[in-house]
């Protein structure tokens, strides 16, 4: 120990002591299991069937690609993305424009507007499930009291409506993040650009369309990529809003998105090999779409400027 101490400078010892636990944790808990999962995806491991797992090459991937349920679930995940992102960006853009104005009490409004983002996703799903409840929900009470509906509605009964409300709740949970990103973008736009626009006689709408919007494209790009991943891998909100089956019963098939399907394959059906393959397909899709998004938004930003 004495010699080791003399061989290693005090700086090296510091680095070794602070980085070793970190590198060990990440290697053991992230990278090694990631490789293990991939290896498992090349086998027919299934804990329901008592047999040693056999290497089957890419069969799991082939099986998934030829499976109708896989495409149904994938389509549903993209549907969630395609409904959520525009909704979320519209809400975020509106709130960011509002918070970019000067008015007394702006700080308090900002603090409260961001709140939903900081709450647990499973609680958010529950909050909305209760709000939309067909018998005693507040939405029914409110709309009925003001004569907007003649009788109580079961908002979450129709499969199509369920998916729509999932997107609304996802929007409610996440819109604070794009709002913050867009607000930062708005605040970096110099005021004289708008003044010049005003002098040139551009209407408020034109100023937003031709000055604010193009300059915000990079901010939209960042927000879209982050929110794409969040919506594509939606899980918590669905679990308490519409997934059902928390006591071990069957999962509601109408809001089963990729992550829920993957969870079911691995931890309910115990088809580990197949589930492992699906997890890598989800990873590949997330990365691919993320890269395409970034490139398109940035290219467009470059063209417009």
């Amino acid at each position, binding site marked *: 120990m004495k010699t080791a101490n003399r061989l290693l400078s005090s700086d090296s010892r510091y680095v070794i002591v602070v980085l070793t636990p970190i590198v060990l944790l990440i290697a*053991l808990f992230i990278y090694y299991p*990631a490789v293990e999962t991939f290896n498992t995806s090349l086998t027919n491991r299934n804990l329901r069937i008592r047999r040693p797992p056999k290497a089957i090459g890419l069969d799991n991937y082939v099986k998934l690609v030829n499976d109708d349920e896989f495409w149904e679930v994938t389509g549903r995940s993209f549907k969630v993305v395609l409904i959520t992102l525009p909704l979320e960006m519209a809400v975020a853009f509106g*709130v960011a424009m509002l918070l970019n104005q000067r008015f007394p009490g702006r700080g308090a409004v900002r603090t409260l507007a961001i709140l939903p983002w*900081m709450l647990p*996703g499973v609680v958010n799903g529950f909050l909305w499930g209760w*709000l939309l409840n067909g018998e005693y929900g507040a939405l029914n009470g409110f709309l009925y009291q003001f004569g907007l509906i003649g009788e109580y509605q079961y908002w979450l009964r129709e499969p199509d409506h369920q998916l729509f409300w999932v997107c609304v709740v996802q929007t409610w949970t996440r819109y604070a*993040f794009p709002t913050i990103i867009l607000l930062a973008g708005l605040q970096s736009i110099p005021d004289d650009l708008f003044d010049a626009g005003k002098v040139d006689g551009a209407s408020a709408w034109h100023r937003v369309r031709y000055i604010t919007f193009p300059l915000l494209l990079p901010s939209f790009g960042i927000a879209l990529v982050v929110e794409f991943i969040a919506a594509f891998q939606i*899980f918590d909100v669905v679990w308490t809003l519409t997934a059902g089956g928390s006591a071990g019963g069957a999962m509601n098939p109408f809001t089963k998105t990729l992550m829920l399907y993957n969870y079911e394959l691995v931890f309910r059906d115990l088809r580990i090999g197949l589930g492992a393959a699906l997890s890598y397909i989800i990873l590949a899709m997330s990365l691919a779409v993320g890269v395409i998004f970034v490139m398109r938004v940035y290219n467009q930003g470059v063209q417009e400027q």
Partner: protein
Amino acid sequence: MNLSLRAQERLRLGFIYVLCAIVMIWALAPIYWVAVSSISTRRELYAQPYKIWFPSEPTFESYHTIFTQGAKFRDGTFSPTAHLMSAGLRNSLVISVASAAVVTLLATGAGYAFARMEFRGKNAIFLLIMLMLPLPIWVSLIALFFIMSRLELVDSLLGLVLIFVTLLLPLAVWMMTTFVRDIPAEIQDAARVDGADRWRILYSIVLPLARPGLVAVFLVAMLTTWNNFLIPLIFSRTDDSQPLTIVLTLFIGQYEVAWEDMSAAAVVTMLPPFLMALFFQRYLVRGLTMGAVK
């Protein structure tokens, strides 16, 4: 155009406050509704049509119920809700505080090394840690479950803390590296010249000056751990380790109709994040946006 400037300004403000009201209703109505439900009597809450919007006799009965009594689970073999709720509260607290403390400690030492020192493999190790940030960790979790089973760390608080610390590391290290970099290098160099070693500098110079950063890392780590659902869903089995987010979903299966009790459980689950968001939002926003915007 013949409005005076003052009237114009008043009109602008009026318009802005109307929009603010809409935003506030959108953001807060679901929260308000669950809070009202949790302090309502069932008779009022189940009125059809409902039109009170604030209970005429507010009561904390539901909170009392979920912590002290409550029927057993459907088939009566699981523990009573009273125990579930207090165990969940304890587990949530232990997991989130312990994970936040450990990750803050590890990230501070590492952040200083990455920000202010040169050593072999520095960039490679930094990349290895940061690569986790954009990659979905779901692929790791599947095999990790079986690794944790072999290590007998499933359904244990220690196992959950280890997983959360690992998942939080990239963001925490990234944040601390940035914060330490913002401390003027001259102060540290002066200490070096005076013969202080790295531990001494870390303890007496970096720690006090990076305190806002430390607080931000701790709060972000605590909030994300408290709110997490997927990790305990996979790695918890019983009330030995189930946090409140899990307990809440068990209640949903159990009480088909007791919405006032479930609302109380939801309020308990979201109260700490809610208070943190109100009082420490500046820190949280800074930390939570940092990971995404590099």
